[in-house]
Structure formats: structure tokens, C-alpha cells
């Protein structure tokens, strides 16, 4: 085969391959929505995080504003410390309420931020003071049954 035709085909092949990698990154993956560098970090302590995972979304009013970057157990208080990186564009007041929510009945868990009315805003590295733990179904059922049982006991007396 002629050297030039071979070069042409190899060029087409390599460019198609690199193009496929770019399609993977931007069209199929989420590199297009990645905002690198322009984010700040907030932390929050939760009594129970349920099934929350690293890189789960942080949403406010349903809009994705950031991602969970780290989850650690604080051995001082035995609470979970959740670190999240928030897009620089979105600022939240000091009395923002963070709660762990579930999208849909069987969906993934995420952190929902509900902004308060404070004038001072949260800065990089700040801690969200008001948090709400994940709802754990087993605990809820347990509490319900316990209430039911004690109700019956009081009505018996």
C-alpha cells in the first residue's frame, strides 16, 4: 500500500479515536458540567447520613449547586462530618438549613440546602450549623411500632 494512503487512514483512525474519547467525556460523561477551581468548601455535621455517598449532589431548590467531596466520622461527637464543594456562583446565608433528602422513593440521596434570611453569608471552610439527618426507614418504623404499643398499653389501663 502507498505510504501516503496509509498515513491518511491512520490519521483518520487516530482522530476518530480521540473524537470518541471527547464524546465520552462531554456528551456521555459529566465533564461539561464540571466546574474546576471555582468552588468553595462548606462542612456540616449530621447525626445520621443514611446512605449518602461521596460525589452525591448538593441541591438548592432542586438545582445542583455542588457535590459531596468527603464524609468522615468525627470521633469527638460521633457525628458524620460531610464536606461539600459548592459552585462559586452560589452563595448562602449563615442560617442555611442543610438536610439529607432522597430523590423519589428509591432514588439517590443528596444534600438539600434551604437558604435562611441572615445577612452574613457562608465563606470558604465555614460550617453549616443547622442540619437535619437522613430519615432512616427502619428507625421510623421502629418508632411507629413503639408508639403504637405504648398507645395500646395506655388504653388498656
Amino acid at each position, binding site marked *: *500500500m502507498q*505510504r501516503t494512503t*496509509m*498515513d491518511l*487512514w*491512520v490519521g*483518520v*483512525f*487516530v482522530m*476518530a*479515536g*480521540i473524537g*470518541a*474519547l471527547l*464524546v*465520552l*467525556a462531554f*456528551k*456521555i*460523561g*459529566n*465533564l*461539561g*458540567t*464540571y466546574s474546576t477551581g471555582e468552588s468553595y468548601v462548606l462542612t456540616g455535621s449530621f447525626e445520621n447520613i443514611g446512605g449518602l*455517598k461521596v*460525589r*452525591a*449532589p448538593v441541591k438548592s431548590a432542586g438545582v445542583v449547586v455542588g457535590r459531596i467531596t468527603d464524609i468522615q466520622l468525627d470521633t469527638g461527637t460521633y457525628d458524620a462530618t460531610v464536606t461539600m464543594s459548592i459552585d462559586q456562583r452560589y452563595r448562602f446565608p449563615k442560617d442555611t438549613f442543610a438536610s439529607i433528602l432522597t430523590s423519589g422513593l428509591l432514588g*439517590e440521596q443528596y444534600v438539600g440546602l434551604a437558604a435562611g434570611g441572615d445577612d452574613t453569608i457562608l465563606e470558604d471552610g465555614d460550617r453549616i450549623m443547622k442540619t437535619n439527618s437522613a430519615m432512616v426507614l427502619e428507625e421510623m418504623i421502629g418508632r411507629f411500632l413503639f408508639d403504637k404499643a405504648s398507645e395500646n398499653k395506655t388504653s388498656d389501663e
Partner: protein
Amino acid sequence: MPSRLVAGVRGVGHRVIDSIWRLGYASRFFALILLKSGTSFRRIGLVVRELYFTGVLSLIIIIVSGLFVGMVLGLQGYETLQRFGAESAVGTMVALSLVRELGPVVAALLFASRAGSAITAEIGLMKATDQLAAMEMMAVDPIARVVAPRFWAGVISMPLLAALFSVVGVFGGYLVAVVLIGVDDGSFWSQMQSAVDYRYDIVNGVIKTCVFGGAVTAIAVFEGYDASPTAEGVSGATTRTVVTSALVILGLDFVLTSVMFRGMG
């Protein structure tokens, strides 16, 4: 009787020593390839020639297989997911299974049978017809001139082929799920994009394909170089290339997956 027993035990020992020796020989050969690959980069034309044979000529089988694997995934995924009323997640399922597992593994298996066997047969036949010996006589190092360019061409073309496989597969899944069955177009793409993470899924998939490409071509060139210089020897070496590559790919895939995705959602 005891002499037979002794012979049996000796047979086991012989095989073990033999296979360990062969493994050591293969590792030394691999180190030699890396050591002598300077020529491949100085004379890039050699690698381009091999890229044509391993990469460009594998395109058809990779693209057609990718399309069909994606279409089947779309059909089966829809079939299962619609029982839970989650048919819009079919895009996520197709993309994740292709990017993480099926793309790298199936493309590598096809690559081993399409390009790996060809490399083994070519090098084996070169050896059988004394071409390699003739090169040595002319003070041309056959490892630098023949083996290393083929190895690097395999390492370069494998990730590109696997990426093409995955993209064509996702397109195949789109064709079946959205165009044929009628899953919503927007939720197909948006759910896929929110579920497939660039760092964890795509980069790990590409790392996998690089490892597979290196493993398959290393096996192929070694089997070719090590083949007995007869017609039988070359055919046996070609078979061993495909069988060993397939086993190594699946084994490596398990190891890499357990390291990369352990504990990931």
C-alpha cells in the same frame, strides 16, 4: 507402582518449573521491548505502519460489534427497567455498562482475536522463514525493528478502539431505546450525563483499555517470537495468543475493577 508415582510427581514438578521459566522468559522479553523501544519513537513511520494493521483494519469489527452490543443492551435494559417503571434510566445503564466494563473488555477480546493473532502469525512466520535471523546477521535488532513498533501500536490503538466501541454502543442503545421504542430523548441523555462521572467511570475505563492493550500485544509478540519455527508451531502460537489473551483480559479486568470501583455507588 512407586516408580510410576515418582514419575507422576516428577511430571507435575516439570510442568511447574517449565511454566515458571516461561513466565520469567516472557518478563525478560517484555523488559527488553521497553528497553529497545527508542527506535520506535525515533522512526515513527514504523509505528504508523503497524497502527494501520492493528488499528485501522480492526475498525470495522469494533464498530459493528459495538453497535450491536449497544442495541442489545438497549433492548434488554428496557425490558428489565420497564418492570420498575424506570425505562428512562436505560441510557444510564447502557452508558455505564459500556464505559466501565463491556467497552474495554469486549473491545480487547475482539482486538486479541483480530490483531493479536495476526501479530503472532506474522512474527512467527518471520521466525520460521529465518527473516529474524537474517536481520540479526545484518546487525539489525529484530526486537527494536519488528517487535517494539507492534507493541506500541497495540498500546496506542487499543484505547482509541475501545472509546469508539463505547460511543458507537451508546449510539446503538439510543437507536433502540429512543428511536425504536420511544423512551424520552431528553431524560435518556440527562440521566446518563448525571450518572456517568468523568473521573471515576471514563478515566478508569480508559486506564483499563491501556492495560489490556499492553497485555494483549505483549502476549501476541511474545508468542510469535517464541513460536517453534514450523507451520505447526506458528498455528499453536496463534491459538495460545487468543486463549491466553482472553484469560488475562478477564483476570486483569476483575483485579482492576475491584481496585477501581470498590465501594463506589
